[in-house]
């Protein structure tokens, strides 16, 4: 949000198209695959525009460190991690403050979605690895993590889709990409369960009037609904492939939402 727009760059052109050709209310292409890792109990891979994100889930398993154990339910420990080469300037490996904050709010959203009371004293460990980043990684990461939890067979209330809306060149748009995030006016990530209308993650940076806020929320809700369908589809494919004993080809199993 903090950078000055480079000379000559137009975030929205005269036809209302964005830098990558999208309309204001359009998501970037999204692809989700469930069950991509062998070692983890559950896993998922998400490509959303130029974001490439892996999520893995281990658990419910013995809780480490012990003092975090809750005798009444499982805890969720979420670790969001940007790989060093996922951004333009190399990031030092290991968690920075931004990662810790994202891990916390993504973990809280996941907590709500899981029937934690069924697994007292255990930990459900969620690892999100951002292989390539292009704005919106916390939402894509939560989207992936939720599919990975389902892939691990952990009983859930529902899947959690997430995406951002924001304000760019005085226009409220859906799903900001990197340039829009850098040079835009506001960003509003949302995680929301379409079936129940529950908001599990909500942040806002920048400057929005209350009317603009309402419009942004509407766009983000629409985005979540689309992503929710892709999440369900990924799991269905995984299970049908499993049922058909690898009869389906992976290429066919890919879905796009334009």
């Amino acid at each position, binding site marked *: 949000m903090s950078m000055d727009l480079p000379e000559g760059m137009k975030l929205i052109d005269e036809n209302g198209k964005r830098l990558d050709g999208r309309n204001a209310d359009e998501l970037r292409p999204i692809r989700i695959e469930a069950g991509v890792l062998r070692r983890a109990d559950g896993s998922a891979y998400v490509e959303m525009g130029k974001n490439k994100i892996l999520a893995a889930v281990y658990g419910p398993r013995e809780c480490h460190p012990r003092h975090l154990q809750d005798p009444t339910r499982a805890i969720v420990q979420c670790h969001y991690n940007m790989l060093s080469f996922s951004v333009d300037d190399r990031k030092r490996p290991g968690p920075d403050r931004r990662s810790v904050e994202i891990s916390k709010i993504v973990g809280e959203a996941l907590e709500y979605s899981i029937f934690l009371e069924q697994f007292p004293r255990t930990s459900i460990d969620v690892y999100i690895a951002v292989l390539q980043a292009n704005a919106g990684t916390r939402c894509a990461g939560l989207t992936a993590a939720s599919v990975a939890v389902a892939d691990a067979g952990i009983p859930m209330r529902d899947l959690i889709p997430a995406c951002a809306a924001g304000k760019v060149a005085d226009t409220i748009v859906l799903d900001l990409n990197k340039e829009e995030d850098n040079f835009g006016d506001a960003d509003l990530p949302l995680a929301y369960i379409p079936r129940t209308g529950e*908001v599990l993650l909500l942040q806002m940076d920048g400057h929005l009037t209350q009317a603009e806020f309402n419009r942004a929320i509407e766009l983000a809700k629409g985005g979540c609904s689309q992503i929710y369908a892709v999440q369900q589809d990924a799991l269905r494919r995984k299970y049908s492939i499993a049922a058909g004993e690898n009869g389906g080809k992976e290429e066919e199993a890919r879905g796009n939402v334009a």
Partner: protein
Amino acid sequence: MSQRSPLSEVKKGHITTLLAKGKRSDGRSFGELRPVSIIEGAIETAEGSARMKLGNTEVVVGIKMAVGEPFADTPNKGVLTTNVELIPMAFEEFESGPPSPMAIELSRVVDRGIRESQMIDLEALCITPEKEVWVLYVDVYALDYDGNLFDASSIAAVAALRNTMVPAKRFGKGEDFHLPLRSTPISCTTVKIGDYLVVDPTLEEEEVSSARLTVATDENGDLRAMQKGGSGFFTFEEVKKSIEMSVEAGRAIRGKI
């Protein structure tokens, strides 16, 4: 908020019963802040400072400045660094050592409240583009914790910034001058307990709440930053109600700093 002991279930029952009768355990209305007292300029070694009580919650904020290098991607802007320290003096569960996720979330929310609202004219803190800019440290320390550090920290930080003098003379950069400020964002936090929303929660209320929404608004009631926390949910109706309560309560605070 993460561990639920049987005790807190009892507490929760008691608090929720009261709320159902329209009451809070300390007698406030749902949208009412606790008493606020702010002592500005309390720390002479700081460029700006504020010691603030919000009910029994107390924080102290000091601003320090120095001359340093700008970031490569903002060569003509000063550098802002915000840090909240949850020192064990303030609460029996705060620990020494590297900052907890709670402290980091707090730091980042306070930082965004200041940064994204563009409260500070960072361009006016450039001395020589690409070479020298003013670096500004906003350090918040919790001294006594009874809930709602989000608002106590944010508001005290804003108050401290408002009495900050840039120490130009000490660094051989001309005469001291007031830190160039623009808007005054006010942060206000609502929590959800059962189906009720209350502003400025005490620690007891925080412990039994399921979700938290912090909203920073400016003089016009525009939104400048927002952060939902906790593992519970809000409906969109509740989000809108929280925003309204925040704007209202923010107005009450705005007069005091």
